[in-house]
């Protein structure tokens, strides 16, 4: 294999792709403009929701037995309005429902005073407004309980300070950067997996299927290049495009996140710092590169079974979705990164990202991950080169994956 030939093929692919609107939109425009735009849209939706929710006032029915102090603190609650209780109420859920239907109220508080006070609250846990009323009531009741406790303590000759024997303070030893890493570890792995897949998806489709569709496959095959050179050249291009998309996406996400952090206020930006130590950054980038090599090989192999773009998408679409699964699993799992995950391709990448971003870098599993990925890449590349050598690909017959693996 001649490197110069490989380089020339890759150059041709790159030149072709930067002249392709479709490719540019997917690899450059989408990450740079669309994702911030979507993030912005989502923020607008959240603001509309928070605006609507700040205007949402719950109605609470309270009876006359409620202590004045409780009533006052409830009255002071911002999103709560007090209404008269039902004239007759049997205490059953159905009775409450009937009253609610008639009055449009959200919760009902009944107070029995005495040696020991009992407050009964009827509310509807399936409605946010009613739940908010419950929270307000709980806060007011707590306040009242402290009042009563204070009275009791003073009555037996203790001081008010005994109300609180000690306060509990939670001290986090993590630095602002570690906290930031915690956020990154929660958000980034899935995102990184998605970007790795997206970048190679379009490039592979265009360079393998597109070429066949445009009828230029034959043209390049009759040139005096070895098939391996063509294949590797294309492979280099797919990897490059996948990495480009990854880098652009990370940049645009970083910008967007800092934008959001700024909007959320200075407090948070002091507590949370979205930076990575060099070692973690290097490992993530390095593994992303190896993962991109694997992805690109896999996607190219799959793409070579299709004759047209549509077919290619039908084959790659499900694989694309399936490759998100490790990212999703990792996001909800608390499992540490061990050899068990390291031997499963893709799952190892996602778990590694999470672990390293979170600040833990077990050397064994990391090395195994890289080794597994490299081995898997070589196997898949071998299959792909066999696929490229097949004649039925050349005549444009669609072949099944099974056939490809058998050959």
């Amino acid at each position, binding site marked *: 294999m001649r490197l110069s030939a490989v380089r020339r093929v890759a150059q041709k692919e790159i030149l072709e792709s930067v002249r392709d609107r479709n490719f540019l939109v997917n690899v450059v425009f989408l990450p740079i403009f669309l994702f911030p735009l*979507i993030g*912005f849209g989502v923020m607008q939706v959240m603001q509309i*929701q928070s605006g609507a929710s700040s205007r949402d006032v719950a109605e609470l029915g309270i009876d006359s037995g409620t202590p004045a102090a409780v009533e006052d603190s409830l009255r002071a609650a911002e999103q709560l309005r007090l209404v008269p209780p039902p004239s007759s109420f049997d205490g059953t859920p159905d009775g409450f429902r009937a009253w609610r239907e008639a009055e449009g109220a959200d919760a009902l508080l009944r107070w029995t005073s005495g040696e020991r006070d009992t407050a009964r609250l009827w509310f509807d846990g399936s409605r946010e407004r009613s739940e908010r009323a419950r929270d307000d009531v709980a806060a007011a009741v707590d306040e009242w309980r402290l009042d009563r406790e204070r009275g009791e303590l003073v009555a037996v000759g203790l001081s008010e300070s005994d109300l609180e024997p000690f306060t509990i303070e939670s001290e986090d030893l993590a630095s602002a950067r570690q906290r930031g890493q915690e956020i990154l570890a929660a958000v980034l792995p899935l995102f990184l997996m998605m970007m790795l897949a997206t970048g190679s998806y379009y490039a592979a489709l265009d360079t393998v299927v597109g070429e066949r569709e445009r009828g230029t496959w034959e043209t390049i095959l009759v040139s005096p290049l070895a098939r391996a050179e063509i294949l590797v050249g294309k492979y280099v291009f797919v990897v490059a495009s996948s990495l480009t998309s990854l880098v652009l996406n990370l940049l645009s996400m970083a910008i967007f996140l800092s934008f959001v952090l700024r909007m959320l206020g200075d407090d948070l930006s002091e507590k949370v710092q979205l930076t990575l130590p060099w070692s973690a950054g290097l490992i993530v980038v390095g593994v992303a590169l190896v993962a991109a090599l694997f992805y690109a090989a896999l996607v190219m192999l799959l793409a070579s079974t299709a004759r047209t773009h549509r077919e290619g998408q039908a084959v790659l679409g499900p694989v694309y979705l399936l490759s998100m699964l490790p990212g999703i699993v990792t996001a909800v799992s608390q499992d540490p990164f061990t050899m068990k995950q390291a031997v499963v391709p893709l799952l190892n990448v996602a778990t590694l990202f999470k672990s390293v971003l979170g600040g833990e870098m077990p050397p064994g599993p990391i090395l195994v991950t890289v080794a597994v990925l490299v081995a898997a890449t070589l196997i898949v590349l071998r299959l792909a080169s066999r696929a490229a050598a097949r004649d039925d690909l050349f005549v444009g017959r669609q072949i099944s994956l099974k056939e490809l693996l058998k050959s």
Partner: protein
Amino acid sequence: MSARIGAFVRKEIREIVRDRRAIILSFVMPILVYPVMFSLMSSTERKSEEKVQQEIHRVAVSGAPEVRDALADLERVEFVSLPADPKKAIADGDLEAWVEAPDTLVREGDGAPVVRIWHHVSHDKSRNAEERLQDALARAAERVKDARYQAAGGHGSLGDLVTLVTVDVATKEETAGAEAGRLVPYLLVMTLFIGAAAVSTDIVAGEKERGTLETLYLVPVPREVIARAKFFVVWGATILTGTLNLASMAWCYRSGLMGDASVDVSALSPAGLGLAVLLIVPLAAVVAGIMLGLSALARNVKEAQLQIMPVMLLAIIPGMLASGQAVKLSAMTALWPIANVALAVRDGLLGQMSLPLLGLVFVASVGWGFLVTRWTAGILSREDTILGFSPEPLFAHTVGGRRRAAMFALSATVLAFFYVGGLLQTWKLLLGLGLSLWVVLPLLGAGSLRFAGSGGRLADVLSLRAPRPLALLGAVLLALGVGVPLFYGVMKLQGLFLPMPENFMGEFGGELGEAGKPLMLFLIAISPGICEELVFRGVFLGLLRRVGTVRSAILISSAGFALIHLSVFRFAPTFLLGLVMAGIVVRTRSIFPSMLFHAVYNASVMLVIGEGLLEPTPLTWGASVALFLAGALLVRSAAARSGESTPPPGN
């Protein structure tokens, strides 16, 4: 003719049914994806939950023995002796937490004694231990308190003095509905788009690619019939995908694969689900129309997907409005496309159905569907759609081409300003603001002028003409008169159906406030007055009115102006301001009065209204209206004297 539509529909259906891949992509995949994804997620989650349950935490306690005793009976905790450097031990993961209590719990000085829980959020085990210790210590504090109370002669426990008993009246169905209502409406909107996209790309762009669309258009039936048949098929397929997906989601919920394990979601009410199915029908018409129209604009499947993807991603955002219960379905929201159905489905799942509103949602959706369908039918009957090539280049030097070029330039300007401006301001607020107004915006304007210009003298296009002095005076009066009505009229009115979050207006405080008045005036009043006016009233109003009616030019340039203010809450006020300023430019044939207006208005907001110095009293309202009317009269008369008010047609 209906028989022929039938034949068309049958042909399309047969083709889709034979397309195994389309079926897999739009029907089978989504149905399989949820169960697989959710079962995987919930089983992983359950597993790690169980693991946390069995986790044994190593905790060191130091200080007062009361605290240690109170924690002693905590299960699954291994108390270890205090290491030499407990903080390091925690950071290294050798210890999960250190409870540091003072030597005695006797109060010294003002505050209560402090018990600290040292932990490390980066370690999952440490985080879990901290949560458990928080609870345990709170209970311990109560116990210490009770002990002291009883020692002093009190009886029983202090905590029992007041008991709150809560009765949750929500039925199983309602609870399940609330749980499902968080996700289902949004997922439903998304699946409708995905399903419609798969079918519509094949049915139009795919036909073009295979060269069969021309064959089809040779058939002696009106083009609208073909368009309608295609629409019906995509609509039907979309309804089918939606229903299947909903069924799959419902199954996931009912079998416990999806949703919070603590909620019995199996009780999802059939009535709510039925309503959702019913609402899919009109929503599918809207979605199918959008997807069909977009894919008709493309020459092949690849292009169609390229056009569909961004629109799809943006169009599903309104569906997110239903992800909480804050936004209500009202006479207003029932009219919003896409969002209305999402909100109605949520309410249906919650079991709160208001028939009149439901009817309104249905009617509005059918209306939107009808509008979209008309647009789609128009596109499908166009020559370039049928032939797969455009007889006229998109940005040709014709009236239509220039209009498209101007619209494109406007969108690009808004997008680029959003991005680059945001970037600069995140970097350094004040400098970024200055740079985005004085460098980015003018560059974008100049680029737009070059790209979408249709000739004519630059001064004419930008309305760079000396104004009459009266026009300037009129602009100042208008600017002074418009503040109160805008702030206490329009914004309040808007607040009725689009309430602002509380902290929204405070955003501009902070860093900007530190800048000092003169710099603020320059950045907030003078700079926008010059730069924004040059670009929106100069470039875009100038370009657009040369290729369309003055009215549409005013509307479109004002919409662009409102969009760069980057917030739904500021859209309406800035749009109205844009209309007024564009009106001034058109009337006075000069951009300078509108620059003055803009600067004076922004300054008055910053110095007077923003500071709360002007309350909405009858006096201020009256004065404002009077100023506004006087200004309007002056601007009008200045126009009358300068002769005609329309620009010379310059193509």
